[in-house]
């Protein structure tokens, strides 16, 4: 059997004919295996969804209880789907995120979904799984991407709070994963003030807490009883889109920060009007991608969403079989 017979790209997403399921399909399908809860990977409207219990919870929070015809939570063990054995392994991307190992007739393909290698107390660490084909993302697959330690980035935010005590600090974060990680990093750096959050972050922060992740004191950023001056020198977290909305006008002379792996590139920083870039990423940087490929050492690497070309080129230079899957529908902007 060729790897392509077990799993191959289709307009709906990666498809496994022997198991009759898709992985992270971008359109409604009969059976969907979902790696994690970000909206471009986890969509509503499938007949049946298999995912980790946490990813299922997150999907229910985002889409409501009836987001799929049926759901099945995966545990640590293997699951048979028709003739195929699948298994979910932690991916270290966000809470509940998993790699999906698909095995049939002695061949194993691991679809890693989005993943990272750095430590993150808000989710389980990535687990390398030996396989024949490793399907990797390529969001930051250029040798210019080398993410600094997240603690150093959080230190920059704390320094700015000291330097500009009269200004509110608005930190752009995506609601699932980045928000909770930034809060956790602030707490681990010893910041124990109340942190203000935009309404769009509330339910997911509550959910993370219910899963045992300590986030400290959080308060809604929009309360009519608080004056503008109250927010001087405070940290306010919100989705980046909110900073352009009237919502942000309530804060005094805000310092606009943004926590994202993209903040390494000056043109991206300027384009977003960011004054305080925080390079905090939930994806692998270039060296982590390479480290992972070398560690897993698969006989073939398939590359999807992002800068596939560069990672395929690196594989060629290092005598590794590799190809780009050209999957569509995944946004790398949301980081």
């Amino acid at each position, binding site marked *: 059997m060729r790897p392509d017979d077990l799993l191959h790209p289709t307009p709906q997403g990666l498809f496994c004919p022997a198991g009759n399921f898709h992985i992270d399909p971008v359109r409604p399908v009969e059976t969907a295996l979902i790696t994690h809860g970000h909206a471009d990977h986890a969509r509503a409207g499938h007949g049946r969804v298999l995912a980790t219990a946490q990813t299922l919870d997150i999907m229910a929070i985002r889409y409501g209880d009836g987001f799929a015809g049926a759901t099945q939570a995966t545990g640590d063990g293997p699951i048979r789907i028709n003739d195929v054995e699948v298994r979910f392994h932690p991916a270290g991307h966000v809470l509940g995120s998993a790699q999906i190992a698909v095995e049939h007739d002695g061949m194993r393909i691991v679809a890693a979904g989005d993943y990272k290698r750095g430590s993150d107390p808000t989710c389980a660490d990535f687990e390398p799984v030996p396989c024949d084909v490793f399907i990797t993302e390529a969001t930051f697959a250029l040798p210019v*991407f080398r993410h600094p330690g997240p603690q150093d980035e959080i230190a920059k935010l704390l320094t700015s709070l000291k330097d500009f005590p009269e200004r509110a600090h608005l930190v752009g974060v995506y609601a699932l994963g980045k928000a909770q990680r930034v809060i956790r990093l602030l707490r681990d750096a010893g910041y124990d003030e109340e942190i203000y959050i935009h309404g769009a972050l509330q339910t997911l922060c509550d959910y993370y807490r219910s899963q045992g992740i300590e986030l400290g004191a959080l308060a809604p950023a929009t309360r009519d009883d608080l004056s503008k001056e109250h927010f001087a020198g405070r940290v306010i977290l919100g989705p980046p889109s909110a900073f*352009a909305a009237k919502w942000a006008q309530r804060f005094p002379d805000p310092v606009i920060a943004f926590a994202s792996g993209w903040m390494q*590139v000056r043109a991206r920083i300027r384009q977003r009007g960011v*004054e305080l870039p925080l390079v905090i990423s939930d994806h692998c940087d270039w060296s982590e991608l390479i480290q992972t490929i070398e560690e897993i050492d698969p006989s073939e690497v398939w590359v999807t969403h992002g800068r596939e070309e560069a990672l395929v*080129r690196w594989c060629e*230079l290092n005598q590794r079989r590799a190809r780009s899957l050209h999957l569509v529908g995944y946004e790398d902007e949301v980081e």
Partner: protein
Amino acid sequence: MKAFSELLDRLVLTPSRNGKLRLLEDYFASVPDPDRGYGLAAITRDLDLRSVKPAMLRGLVAERFDEELFRLSYDYVGDLAETISLIWEGPGGGTRPLSQVVEQLNAASRSDAPALISGMLDRFGPAERYALLKLATGGMRVGVSSRLAKQALARFGDVDVTEIEELWHGLDPPYVSLFAWLDGQGPKPAQAAASPFRPVMLASPLAEAELETLRPQDFMAEWKWDGIRVQAASQDGVRRLYSRTGDDISAAFPDVIGDMDFDGAIDGELLVRKGDAIAPFSDLQQRLNRKTVSKAKLQAFPAFIRAYDLLHEGAENLRPLPFAKRRERLEDFAGHLPSGRFDLSPTIPFKDWAELAEARAAPPDPVIEGVMLKRLDSIYVPGRPKGPWFKWKRDPFIIDAVLMYAQRGHGKRSSFYSDYTFGVWTRDGELVPVGKAYFGFTDEELRQIDKFVRDNTRERFGPVRSVRAEPDFGLVLEVAFEGLNRSKRHKSGVAMRFPRISRLRWDKPPHEADRIETLEALLPD
């Protein structure tokens, strides 16, 4: 080098002028000599480094990286120095002072330079690598004018900025004597430059009600020409042309410099000719902000100076003399200058303010933007003292235009739609954009416009929204501007000078806004 690279990064991302001043002041206060002086010189572009060519850097990269991976990276990042600073791998961990970097770069021969640069890249972190490469390639663009840097110095040392401007051209990096003085640790450095810049005297705007308190016989009037204010200094064989902020612009004006066959310092207006007439400001712009000038531009836009004042003649400093006396000396002095290159600013005879107001309303030349009033007894002092000199500008042009697009601002305005594109009606009954303005309104008005934009958005394009602008629904803005030029770049064919929002016309329906014909009638021939 670490402090310098941090300064660069933060300056680039700090939108506000005050924020930039604060960063620079902090840098001067916290970084020792001679590093702070080299950092200052890098920012004011006064650091003369033997420049490293991009081709050399590409060569260094080619030795270490796969060409294809580098190309993909460069395509993505879009800036050579930044790409190299991010992609480079080295043991790191060894910064060195900026002054040492500068000295080593200057001492290196052409053949040594590649090894020197790659050695530094190996030792530095990404931000320092970026600063090094920008320094070495001479591509320092951090949104700080040399004027702003001088203002930061003035604030740092609590002295007047004109004192810094006056000294500047006699000083060299790393400015140790200057910093010693600003630190309060040494005397004020002596003026050392030949043909130094003399800080300019400026006029305050005239409020018409003030005229009642002023006596016409105390003043002389002359036209305010729409060029750029310059100072032409020629002493001891050194000829320099300075902008009003003390930037040396000699290199762009070899025609003027070539004819500065005098010993003295003239204050005047730099203008260009078009045939027998004075060309509009848009033609003068062809000669500005250039390091060199082509023969074609020299011929198409010949420059000359219309003299307002004489600051120095030979060794004599005329600035303590009253203006009337200086003017007499200037008239004598200008008589001996090549007439095509220098002429005298004509005075406007008047008996009373009414007569002057009449002259102001009907100036003899389109390149006049108002009148100047100078007290006959005024000595020449730097800065903008209140009282001796007034500028009485022509009234601005006013039109009513319709708000068409709004763009989000930057910094503290980033959650407000604060940059407005407005249009007027064409003959076909369409709106055509004629200008863009982002000030002139109060904070309260900004909130009102922002709400209007959000409530009446038609389409979004990134940070820009198009808003409803229909004959019977939309927001009419009263726009004031100083003049109009033809423009090929704009669909409307016109470009406004200095447009600002002067009033919000909530009361006016858009179909009553102005038409393009009104603007076309204002265009110069």
